[in-house]
């Protein structure tokens, strides 16, 4: 017999967990007490949502469910934004929260909150453990559910007395869930239909989303596209699947996307949506497509198919399997005219101007990405900085992370910390705005304490730029509640106060020198770019 708290640690060890991100409190103390006897590394963040975002970065890079921990009450509610963020982007998390003692549940005692209830709309599943003997089974199920099918966060709420209960520990070898059986193999009849549709299509287009990355199917996607010569666009979550310079790649589509991608979407006669959920920012309205365009939708989650758009050929299953099968079944093809038409638009790079005393963020990001090593992990925050990054970062084979579905400001730095833990040899760069930086700047402390050399680019435009742009375009430039200049600290001094090397640049020439410093540094580094207040995303 062992304490359930020890069993929790053993469950994590059995799942191969090496790092967890968390923040303690009374209701989770028995677990923390036992964690000290394990080799699992605990990363103490400075706010619980950042534990969730760090686990998010870790999970997306490692390709496995990652763990975050918080105490009951305010600790748990602080975690909510991170859970919702992971849910929106289908990221596998196992979130562990402490809970008040079972005999006190429902009495509104100190730091009691119904967290499984509060998180209900945006978890894949949740558990409130009331019988300690069930704990090993629940942990096994949680990891399995989080990391299979359409990935997502699973919450386990563990009352403090349950953690103290003695149980027989045996980690189950497999899960027994009669209800949960994600479809892996695609229906062969539907696959045949897809092949037929693609054979007669003259202007086919692949639209790849984050699901392709979750399914670890980037190579398979590339094999299919290259064999059949079908051009590819990606959603924001699908960025990085294809190298930006690849002749078949036409960029990011959607409201914030590039012209080539959006023209490809409106001109194609057959669109294969794969691992993409037709979010409103990607495909604003079905009108975006020609009425005759045939839609093929491939996804592991049947509920996504036909949700936001009429679909001609639905195909449910794991992207990796389906792509392999399609590549086998389809013959090679040439589509010279269609590709030439698109490449022409792609190769007309818009000219960028420099404004005296400022760094042009688009030019900067192109230059930065050209200098960064191939396996760089780039994490964009939310706002103009994100759009600049999406459309100008030259992806070469590394990874791109952002909060696409929720657009959660404050994601980039903690997610970068998590990503760096998952891949210590990769360069990890977080790009954020001066607004979003201030939602996460407490994590500088984590970076220093854990000696995690992530690099931070801060685009200071003294505005909540994305909202400013919206107000300019849709509210007659009535700029309100977006001015942050008067409160902005000296970011360089701030970073230095934490012991992080930092620089401020105001011209492209200075920026280029700083990029060299950033790339050569083995330490954490913050670069503040002075960006013109009226710079637009377009």
């Amino acid at each position, binding site marked *: 017999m062992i304490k359930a708290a020890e069993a929790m640690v053993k469950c994590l060890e059995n799942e191969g967990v090496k790092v967890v991100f968390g923040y303690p409190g009374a209701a989770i103390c028995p677990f923390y007490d036992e964690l000290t006897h394990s080799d699992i590394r605990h990363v103490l963040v400075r706010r619980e949502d950042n534990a969730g975002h760090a686990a998010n970065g870790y999970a997306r890079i490692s390709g496995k469910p990652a763990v975050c921990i918080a105490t009951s009450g305010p600790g748990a509610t602080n975690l909510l934004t991170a859970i919702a963020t992971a849910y929106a982007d289908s990221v596998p998390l196992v979130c562990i929260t402490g809970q008040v003692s079972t005999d006190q549940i429902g009495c509104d005692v100190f730091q009691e909150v119904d967290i*499984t*209830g509060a998180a*209900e*709309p945006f978890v*894949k*599943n*949740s558990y*409130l453990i*009331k019988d300690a003997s069930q704990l090993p089974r629940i942990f096994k199920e949680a990891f399995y*559910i989080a990391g299979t099918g359409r990935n997502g966060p699973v919450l386990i709420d563990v009352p403090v007395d349950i953690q103290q209960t003695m149980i027989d520990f045996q980690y189950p070898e497999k899960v027994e*869930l*009669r*209800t*949960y059986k994600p479809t892996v193999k695609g229906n062969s009849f539907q696959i045949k239909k897809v092949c037929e549709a693609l054979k007669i299509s003259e202007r086919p287009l692949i639209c790849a989303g984050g699901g392709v990355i979750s399914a670890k199917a980037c190579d398979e996607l590339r094999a299919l596209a290259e064999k059949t010569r079908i051009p590819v666009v990606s959603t924001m979550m699908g960025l990085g699947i294809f190298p930006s310079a690849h002749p078949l790649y036409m960029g990011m589509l959607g409201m914030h996307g590039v012209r080539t991608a959006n023209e490809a979407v409106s001109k194609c006669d057959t669109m294969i949506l794969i691992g993409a959920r037709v979010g409103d920012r990607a495909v604003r309205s079905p009108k975006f497509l020609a009425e005759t365009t045939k839609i093929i939708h491939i996804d592991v*989650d*049947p*509920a996504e198919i*036909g*949700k936001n758009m009429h679909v001609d050929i639905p195909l449910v299953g794991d992207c990796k399997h389906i792509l392999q099968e399609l590549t086998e079944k389809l013959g090679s093809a040439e589509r010279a005219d269609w590709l030439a038409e698109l490449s022409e638009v792609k190769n007309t790079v818009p000219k960028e101007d420099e404004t005296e005393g400022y760094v042009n963020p688009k030019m900067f990001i192109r230059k930065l990405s050209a200098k960064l090593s191939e396996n760089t992990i780039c994490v964009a925050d939310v706002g103009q900085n994100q759009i600049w990054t999406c459309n100008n970062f030259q992806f070469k084979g590394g990874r791109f992370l952002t909060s696409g579905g929720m657009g959660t400001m404050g994601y980039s730095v903690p997610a970068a910390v998590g990503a760096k833990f998952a891949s210590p040899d990769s360069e990890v760069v977080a790009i954020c705005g001066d607004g979003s930086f201030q939602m996460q700047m407490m994590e500088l402390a984590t970076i220093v304490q854990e000696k995690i050399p992530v690099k931070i680019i801060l685009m200071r435009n003294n505005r909540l730029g994305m909202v400013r742009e919206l107000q300019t375009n849709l509210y007659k430039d009535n700029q309100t509640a977006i001015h942050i200049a008067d409160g902005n600290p000296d970011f360089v001094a701030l970073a230095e106060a934490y012991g992080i090397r930092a620089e401020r640049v105001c011209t492209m020439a200075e920026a280029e020198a700083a990029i060299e410093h950033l790339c050569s540094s083995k330490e954490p580094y913050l670069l503040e770019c002075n960006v013109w207040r009226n710079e637009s995303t377009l």
Partner: protein
Amino acid sequence: MKHTISILVENHAGVLSRISGLFSRRGFNIDSLAVGRTDDPEISRVTIVADGDEHTVEQLEKQLNKLIDTIKVKTLSHKELLPRELQLIKINANPQQRGEILTVCEIMGAKIVDISANTMTLEISDTPAHLMRFEELIRPYGIKEIVRTGVIAIQKGSDTIKK
């Protein structure tokens, strides 16, 4: 358009709130919800009657299927459906009215389950439409209280939800 959706679920804590939460989040109004265990004590059956168009129902079925505790979801068409609801009605009834009420109950297939000096309590189990007609017939006496279980339904013939 009204739909009758039958759902088999694992009899776990929180299942009902997940299901009802899903309906409200997707903007689907529930007319009635009935739940009870099946022949297998670990499995409950939920019957929901709700309003919505075809597309919404299809979405809902898919979302319900995504819940980890869902075993089976089936929207029963009106043709294959055998719906039932149980209703208890307490009405004003003085001793002179009792005979008359008894006749109505006999014709409509209702039972008298309790009686007091100036009230009667009636029980009827039938289709929702029949319950409505009965209610109209009884209304003139003065309804003091009505309780309904919500509709439950089963398929006609030999088919079951598992098929």
